[in-house]
């Protein structure tokens, strides 16, 4: 099955905060991004504030799904944007700004996870109200639990535990593709590997997850 959002001419993302809204990268907002970057590069913090607002949800989302911990995700997101501001002079525009900043976030997160290794602790965010009405999720839990709300929370914990068992690169590829909707080509740029590697990592990661979550899948 081909997901239409992954064949779009421009990357399309569903934001973590509002998954029902798709945000094409070719909006007028995206067109003025080079100007904002130039202004931020010359020290204009208002321009940088605008850049943060545009990318914060995706960056936070990636880091959060990698760490399963809100506090860690908050720290790493802040560090990512601070580091990006300091390194803005080195951004030549060879790749898009969001790929560049994603790369910073991913490197920071993977380094952090290497250090954290054996003291991982989950601090999960709450589910939004839309989760209860999502037909896909309702179908998954309604057969198993009489209380839908409790079922979703339990499912959330199990899902995060299963994600935590994956290696960092496999978790990253699942996070970027299946959770955040980033196309394979963009993931390849972010992870600095080829598309084939992304696909094979995604396949392996899904297989692993399917095994861990077999009790929750029909």
């Amino acid at each position: 099955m081909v997901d239409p959002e992954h064949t779009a001419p421009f990357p399309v993302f569903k934001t973590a905060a509002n998954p029902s809204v798709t945000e094409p990268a070719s909006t007028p907002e995206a067109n003025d991004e080079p100007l904002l970057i130039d202004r931020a590069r010359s020290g204009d913090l208002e321009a940088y504030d605008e850049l943060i607002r545009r990318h914060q949800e995706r960056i936070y989302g990636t880091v959060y799904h990698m760490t399963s911990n809100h506090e860690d995700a908050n720290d790493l997101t802040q560090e990512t944007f601070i580091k990006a501001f300091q390194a803005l002079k080195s951004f030549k525009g060879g790749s898009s700004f969001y790929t560049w900043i994603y790369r910073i976030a991913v490197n920071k997160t993977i380094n952090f996870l290497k250090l954290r290794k054996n003291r991982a602790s989950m601090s999960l965010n709450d589910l939004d109200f839309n989760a209860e009405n999502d037909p896909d999720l309702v179908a998954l839990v309604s057969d198993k639990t009489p209380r839908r709300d409790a079922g979703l929370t339990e499912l959330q914990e199990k899902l995060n535990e299963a994600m935590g068992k994956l290696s960092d690169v496999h978790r990253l590829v699942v996070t970027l593709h299946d959770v955040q909707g980033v196309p394979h080509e963009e993931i390849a740029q972010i992870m600095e590997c080829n598309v084939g590697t992304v696909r094979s990592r995604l396949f392996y990661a899904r297989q692993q997850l399917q095994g861990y979550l077999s009790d929750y899948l029909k």
Partner: protein
Amino acid sequence: MDQNEQNFDQLRQLLKLKRHEVPPPGYFNRLPAEIISEIRAEQRAGRDSVSRLATEAPWLMRLWGALEAKPLFGGAFGAAVCALILGALYLTEKPAERPTPMPLNASMASPFTASSPTTIDAQGVGSPLLLAATNLNNVVGPSLFDQAPTLQTAPVSHSPGN
């Protein structure tokens, strides 16, 4: 790949749950301001340290300015600093010269053996002194031992069996 996508359909549905995990309300309204204030604080700290350096060590700032303005001068300065460091390293690693052993002359053949006048003062004439590895060639004038009373020795008669 389509077959694989089909196989993972349910998993992908389940993974959609993660899109519904959201940070506390208002988080994304606060985050940019926190990041910007952090950047401002770092900039202030950077400016403060530079301005403190400028007031406390203006010569350093002038030197830095000169190095920045003339790369050739900067390179020469860097090379000089490297040479200094290498020289210092060479000198510290060079083994220290061994002191020449003190020749024992006739006046020192007695049980009273001096190392230096200060040693004598400290230890007293009456006690046996240790031979120290001090060069006495530079000692000017007669040694205090020359003035020390010579010991009288008397033969001791000893007959085995007593």
